[in-house]
């Protein structure tokens, strides 16, 4: 049941103490840390499946090129995993450092998701070490099998974390008595209404982001004339994974939109800048939401399209922003621009994927146009932008609530001083981290592929 939405009362925090003036700073810090971590999650989801697939090709054909490629990718995956370990640790620290009141009030309700994620993460850490350090030291078959838990735990780990995010959007699995959270039911919380579309949306995003970013590296090499077996294999595998996921993502996105229309109508209204509740609501492309006038200006209005998309019925009623008081609405322009960015880029990526597949299936080769490779190079960074834009849509769209309609973000935040200092420190550290990772990946890429087979 969409039970939680029926609750009228706001919760009473479990931690005594004052709310904080620096909620914006805390949100910025959390957003920054998530922006750093989420692309690495994409690699955790998709990259193991990709290198394991290539290792499978090696086992079947005995072709050393496949082995070199799988080995190279697994080394990159290990570096990214190490970075993910530390950036993920920062996130779990930040839950307590920035949102102690949220954790104290609801930690028992949703915490189990992270406990299960912890187990997945552990399995991943163990087997990625065995896999990468076990090349040429385990039997080929055993080595291949040690890769399987990496793929599985990459999925289960992100599954649990995203289930918690789904819970923040559609809270369930507890009762409210006089504003107090009681009778927690962890599994009801985990399997909440938003969980399924969020996890599948993110899982596909992992393949799209990882696939296109890695493909972009080889597309660059391709344009510079490196077109041997090694580079062609790498390109085809990456593009195949990303291109399979990208068109499906359009369908999943539609499903997510309809779920949001039902469970979080105000978020949907913010995505579209829809002020008044109406039947046959239009869809507006582009433009800026004007809060004083309560409308989107300079956009292209397509009549009835929003009702059609949100409810699959051109005359359906769509709830507008006016249904709640201004203090309970998210910042419309941020959410709306992020949403349109995601949809725009996602559509482009789906088209690019379709182009690759039609050429590959009809002609059995890669497209010849240089513009295709330039587009693939652009697709990597763009898919990252779409990923972050998507998360901005769902996270900023949930504001001003940390737990939808139950706990305000301002109730959740820490009362400790000095957030600004911490923020500045964190920005500096992340800039250094980003520079270091780019430096390292370039160094790895410069090593000749043959060195992998010898080692």
């Amino acid at each position, binding site marked *: 049941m969409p039970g939680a939405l029926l609750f009228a009362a706001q919760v009473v925090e479990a931690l005594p103490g004052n709310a904080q003036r620096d909620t914006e700073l805390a949100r910025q810090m959390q957003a920054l840390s998530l922006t750093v971590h989420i692309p690495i999650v994409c690699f955790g989801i998709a990259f193991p499946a990709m290198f394991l697939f290539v290792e499978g090709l090696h086992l079947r054909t005995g072709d050393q090129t496949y082995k070199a490629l799988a080995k190279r990718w697994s080394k990159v995956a290990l570096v990214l*995993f190490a970075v993910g370990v530390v950036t993920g640790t*920062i996130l779990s*620290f930040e839950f307590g*450092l920035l949102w102690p009141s949220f954790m104290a009030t609801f930690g028992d309700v949703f*915490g189990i998701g992270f*406990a299960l994620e912890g187990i997945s993460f552990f399995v991943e850490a163990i087997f990625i070490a*065995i896999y990468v350090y076990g090349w040429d030291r385990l039997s080929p078959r055993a080595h291949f099998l040690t890769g399987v838990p990496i793929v599985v735990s990459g999925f289960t780990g992100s599954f649990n974390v995203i289930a918690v995010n789904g819970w923040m959007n559609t809270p369930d699995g507890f009762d409210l008595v006089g504003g107090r959270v009681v009778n927690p039911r962890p599994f009801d919380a985990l399997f909440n209404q938003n969980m399924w579309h969020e996890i599948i949306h993110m899982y596909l995003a992992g393949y799209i982001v990882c696939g296109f970013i890695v493909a972009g590296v080889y597309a660059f090499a391709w344009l510079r004339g490196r077109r041997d077996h090694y580079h062609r294999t790498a390109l085809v595998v990456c593009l195949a994974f990303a291109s399979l996921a990208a068109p499906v993502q359009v369908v999943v996105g539609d499903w997510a939109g309809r779920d949001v229309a039902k469970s979080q109508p105000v978020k949907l209204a913010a995505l579209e800048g829809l002020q008044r509740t109406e039947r046959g609501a239009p869809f507006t492309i582009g433009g800026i939401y004007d809060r004083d006038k309560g409308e989107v200006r300079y956009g292209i209005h397509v009549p009835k399209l929003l009702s059609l998309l949100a409810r699959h019925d051109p005359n359906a009623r769509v709830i507008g922003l006016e249904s709640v008081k201004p203090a309970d609405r998210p910042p419309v322009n941020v959410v709306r621009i992020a949403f349109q960015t995601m949809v725009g880029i996602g559509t482009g990526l789906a088209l690019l994927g379709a182009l690759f597949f039609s050429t590959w299936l009809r002609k059995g080769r890669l497209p010849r146009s240089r513009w295709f490779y330039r587009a693939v190079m652009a697709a990597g960074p763009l898919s990252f932008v779409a990923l972050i834009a998507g998360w901005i849509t769902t996270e900023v769209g949930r504001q001003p609530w940390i737990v939808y309609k139950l706990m305000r973000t301002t109730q959740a935040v820490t*009362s400790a001083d000095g957030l600004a200092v911490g923020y500045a420190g964190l920005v500096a550290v992340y800039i250094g981290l980003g520079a270091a990772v780019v430096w390292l990946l370039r*160094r790895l890429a410069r090593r000749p592929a043959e060195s992998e087979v010898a080692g």
Partner: protein
Amino acid sequence: MLPQLCLALVIVGVTAYGVLGSADFGAGFWDLTAGGAERGGRIRGMVERSMSPVWEANHVWLIFVLVIVWTAFPVAFGSIFSTLSIPLFLAALGIIFRGTAFALRGHAATMKEARGLGALFALSSVLIPFCLGAAVGGIASGRVEVGNAAGEPFGSWLNPTSVLVGVIAVLNGAYLAAVFLAGDSRRAGQPDLVRAFRARALGAGALAGLVALGGLLVLHSDARALYDGLTSGGGLIMVIVSALAGVATLGLVWAERYGPARLTSALAVAAVVVGWALAQDPYFLPGRLTLRQAAAPDAVLSVVLISMAVGTLILAPSLAYLYRLTLQGRLDQDYEPLDQRFRP
């Protein structure tokens, strides 16, 4: 009963991190103090070879502790993290530096790069255990109040008990690392490194023991309740067990029996963690919040326990496989002094 079982999970996690995580920090300590590029190259090479396959798995124990505490003892978690935000934030920054610098040093192309990254890795390996130890000291000495940043922002971790626990955490890591590295060096067939780490293990072990004994005086004046708990009943028994295990480890290292020394050194840490828990019984946050008050409802605790039991069924064989491969040397990289790599 359920709160005690969940507390036991926390104790297991803290102990595992206090042994395995600490040893990785200690390896960083020896990396830091190994001397110039040429003289320290052999030690650094050994540190790199030993840590590479296992440090991520070792680090996960910290996450494990956090997750259990916030699920099973949420109010305590919120209180601890908001009051002790400064040392915990510093530890978090240190964790970024350490993990990244270590991962990157493995791919450094010149001695200069390796030196810069190594310094960052090694310095943060000292910063992290100190900060985490200081936070533990703040909790154990009853300085965390229930509430959103209700305790002292500085006094909660800059106090005699915190500094003591922080220093012990650093020394304990150095000691454990030296014991483990001596064993690894022997497996790698590097007798001079075995001797070097053996000497370090004996020195650091003796020092850690002396500081721990002297520390009792600090606790006597600064954290009387904790002192009383550690010097009576179950707390006292655990302190004695830890001391005996520590002395036994020194003896085993002296006799160059590094395998059993691994076990006794781990036992020494485990006994201290259990002793700490017994000393502050029945409190989770001493003087402020009992274990019962801190615990989430039973429905949640039983879900936590069941999940962990199922998780153990998956994790135990996986970990056993990793450590078996590691101890058999099947994942070993070829040993190479760190500075050698940069010579033509």
